[in-house]
């Protein structure tokens, strides 16, 4: 459940991240691949070495999708329907991996925002990421 204050905070934060989407997204992915190496198994078709074109491009896509979701929180299921189908029928990622990326997104935000990543902001973003992941995994079975 997200309060109105939390929804505003989420939009504010992702709006700030959009201009640096490549940096934030690729860093979150790199953190995930380094801390949880099993996640690399889903990316054997890409060059995911640090600062690679693929990593930056894919990171940017993720942050853009999150920012889009943030602006449409009350209609996440509709907004994310294509992505949801893609994750269910093509990517078929083991659902536990969403939590791993979510955690690394939080760590990335904390590193970049420092003390501005307050406990209240952390809680709001964590709840948003959980809701986002739940929609992405909705069609899995």
């Amino acid at each position, binding site marked *: 459940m997200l309060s109105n204050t939390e929804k505003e905070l989420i939009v504010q934060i992702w709006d700030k991240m959009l201009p640096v989407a490549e940096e934030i997204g690729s860093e979150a992915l790199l953190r995930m691949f380094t801390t949880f190496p099993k996640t690399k198994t889903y990316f054997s078709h890409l060059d995911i070495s640090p600062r690679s074109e693929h990593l930056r491009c894919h990171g940017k896509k993720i942050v853009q999708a999150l920012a889009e979701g943030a602006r449409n929180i009350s209609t996440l299921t509709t907004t994310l329907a294509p992505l949801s189908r893609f994750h269910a029928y093509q990517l078929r990622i083991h659902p536990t991996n969403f939590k791993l990326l979510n955690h690394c997104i939080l760590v990335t935000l904390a590193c970049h925002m420092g003390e501005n990543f307050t406990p209240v902001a*952390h809680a709001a973003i964590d709840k948003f990421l959980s809701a986002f992941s739940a929609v992405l995994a909705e069609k899995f079975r």
Partner: protein
Amino acid sequence: MVEWSDSECSTIASVWCKINVDEIGPQALARVLIVYPWTQRYFGAFGNLSSAAAILGNPKVSEHGRTVLNALDKAVKNLGNIKGTYSELSQLHCDKLNVDPDNFRLLADCLTIVVASAFGSALNPAVQATWQKFLSVVVAALSSRYF
């Protein structure tokens, strides 16, 4: 049997020596109580936990945060036997405190995020990975005496 490379040992020691326990401990505990409110169930005697502000200003939370983080020192100094080091603490959390061990991981994650806020880019992906490997061994050790 957990194995640590020389590089991992020195990374863990280096992160630990930069952590100000008096600041980071209270912040980490407050954060887990705010972000994962069900963890408040174990702190009924701590007084006012009714809002983020109350939790952040609660002296019992701060004191306990310092206690918890100070206890990590033993693991840093005994990387070769973290499981043995925390055997009694694990029994305490199971038998007396009745803490669901799934919550240990949440505190570890919040600690990592507080450290990330304080360290910024110094907590780079490689350092994060080593730090999290260390915390996952600590969490496993604290969960080891649950039967």
